[in-house]
């Protein structure tokens, strides 16, 4: 955890506003974790989810934002694949996880094509460290409900990241692509919340901060 917080300071803008935002996000995620009883969203995954939420914070041009988005979508694929592999899911929820994994893969493909159109190379595949740092949190769950709650936290972080990205992207088509992906992630949230019998659309403005 301390290592991750240090990484934000060393690798990021080192601006106080950004660090404060990270700490605020982290506190919010900790609060949610405690609200779930302390064991549902594993403590070890909390700062890592915060790093997902802040994935686009350092991107200052379209290429770097796209690269971060591709990395995020590839990890999202792995989140759902790891959920399926957990053996904790019912047949119906497993089908949902497979669909969402496919959706995330499609996002990654479209973003990779967009990055190529800008003349940039796609980022390296996620490393074992990347995977463990985010997907590892799902290894601490012990029931389908735990998996669903983790997936909700992850999707919220992804929506928040795209919300940030929408404010930074300059290309018109990329703004539209980003919005159509963010909307899809919001739909994932509806299905996941309904599976947990939570209110599916709790807020009129879905920013991932709700």
């Amino acid at each position, binding site marked *: 955890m301390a290592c991750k917080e240090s990484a934000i300071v060393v690798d990021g803008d080192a601006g106080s506003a950004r660090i404060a935002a990270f700490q605020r996000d982290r506190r919010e995620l900790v609060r949610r974790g405690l609200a779930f009883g302390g064991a549902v969203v594993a403590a070890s995954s909390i700062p890592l989810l915060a790093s997902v939420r802040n994935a686009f914070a350092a991107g200052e041009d379209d290429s770097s934002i796209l690269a971060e988005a591709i990395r995020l979508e590839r990890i999202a694929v792995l989140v759902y694949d790891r959920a399926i592999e957990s053996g904790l899911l019912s047949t119906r929820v497993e089908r949902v996880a497979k669909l969402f994994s496919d959706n995330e893969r499609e996002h990654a493909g479209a973003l990779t094509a967009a990055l190529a159109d800008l003349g940039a190379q796609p980022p390296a595949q996620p490393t074992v460290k990347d995977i463990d740092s985010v997907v590892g949190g799902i290894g601490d769950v012990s029931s389908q409900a735990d998996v669903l709650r983790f997936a909700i936290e992850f999707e919220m972080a992804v929506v928040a990241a795209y919300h940030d990205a929408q404010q930074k992207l300059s290309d018109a088509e990329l703004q*539209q692509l980003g919005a159509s992906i963010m909307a899809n992630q919001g739909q994932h949230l509806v299905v996941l919340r309904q599976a947990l019998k939570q209110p599916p659309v709790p807020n009129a403005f879905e920013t991932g901060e709700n």
Partner: protein
Amino acid sequence: MDIDSFLRDPVSRRRFFAGSGLTFAAGSAMFAAACGDGQDTGGVATSREEDDAADVEILNGALDLELMSVAAYKAAAARLRGEVLQIGKLLVEQEQEHADALVSAVEDAGGTPNRAKSSYDFPELRSQRDALRFVLELENTAVAAYIDALPRITKSDLRGTASAIVTNEAQHISVLRGALGLPQVPHAFVNGEAG
């Protein structure tokens, strides 16, 4: 306006946002944060007054669409029952929240917000299924219109707010599709064109 033609004609629905920029100013909790010092990203330099005038036109187009959605959900509610009626009540409240925010944004940009029409030429809704399909089509229209307008938003933080509305409308689509027994997430990209 012929509502049926409107819903099926992408050109007509895009005219809701036909101005040069979609900008939301302060006035609600969401839009307040977006007011004032957002980064302008448009390539053409325009005066604050020109931006505001264009904003009012675009915002009023969005407001028309949200007000029509509120009226549509109220019309549909007469055919909804039980849990589905409760869903309808929630979704109309959220459409009203969007409309309220847009009213404030128009006023803050120095304009006069459009008002709801006294009546809308909605199709006859004979059943719950009819009602759900009608509001579903309207939600898809809203998503298409907002996404089409998104690049014309001049202030970066306001583009984020518009995306939050689009995402909420997409969530409505999933809820409505679920109530109709349809796949709730039919596509990986939500653009309102493929209902």
